[in-house]
């Protein structure tokens, strides 16, 4: 970094423009469509519930959008049998 860079402020408008373009491209696409994450959440929940008894709160579904790639993160906690209350283990 040279001394001059200290005085040069990076302009923020181009960053704003890029962030907006990326965000709006996604928002326009998903407009009018039901929320993908909540659909995934419901269906995953249904599949798991067939085999293991878990509570809604133990399933976290989140999506992180990137420019070239997005990640879908699914976090399922299955409590050990002993920790599950009788009513739930039913």
């Amino acid at each position: 970094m040279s001394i001059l860079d200290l005085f040069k402020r990076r302009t923020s408008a181009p960053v704003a423009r890029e962030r907006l373009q990326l965000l709006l491209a996604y928002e326009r696409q998903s407009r009018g469509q039901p929320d993908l994450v909540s659909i995934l959440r419901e269906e995953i929940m249904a599949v798991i519930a067939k085999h293991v008894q878990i509570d809604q709160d133990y399933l976290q579904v989140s999506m992180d959008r990137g420019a070239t790639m997005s990640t879908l993160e699914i976090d399922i906690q299955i409590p050990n049998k002993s920790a599950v209350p009788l009513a739930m283990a039913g």
Partner: protein
Amino acid sequence: MGKVVVVTSGKGGVGKTTSTAALGAAVAKTGKKVALVDFDVGLRNLDLIMGAERRVVFDLVNVIQGTAKLSQALIRDKRLETLYLLPASQTRDKDALTEEGVAEVIARLRSVFDYVFCDSPAGIERGAQLAMRFADEAVIVTNPEVSSVRDSDRIIGLLDARTMKAEQGELIQKHVLVTRYDAARAARGEMLSIDDVLEILSTPLLGIIPESQDVLRASNLGSPVTLSEPINSAAKAYLEAARRLEGEDLPVVVPFERKGFLDRLLGRRAA
């Protein structure tokens, strides 16, 4: 048959009410009969900006519920005899508006006035949707700032989906009005440029209103800036925007600020 124009934005505080007053007064100045309708039930402010706050007796909700006649609720401007205001109710909430009621009021205003400007509440809920429902054209007020542009994009989506015109397969004409534009900051790359905003929203430009202290002074005085100080830069920009709204082909000049000596010295570049 008059034209119905909704002034909307999604985001609050960007200048919808100020722009409604300034554009409406500018059109009324040309001799056209203009009605300004405040749709912000519960949070009315158009009366204050127009300087008519002490003359409100009946309001939009009274007319819809049949407790007052339209002619009783309309307030005639003291400065321009072609300019009228239909205030919103301050005591009710937005659920007091019904779609049928709004349809009837708008239809009657349309038959009497050349222009009906609907000042939308912020947000995308019922009140905002009723304000845009029967519009022929829309003015989307946008600040060159990320959250305002995002909300404008959302509102544009709603205009294309939820208005009567859109539902009948017709095209609702949309215009972006950029307000609070600071040419110096845009030149330094600190603020989204006009090109950025237009490219992102891909909607034609109605005008650029520069950030100006005169707009606040006009609000303080209760007079649309196009009436109280027609020679200042913001008022001129509104007057030109109004001419474009009336169909005149008037090129938009982007306010330009020359880079200061210090900016050159420090090598700040425009975006």
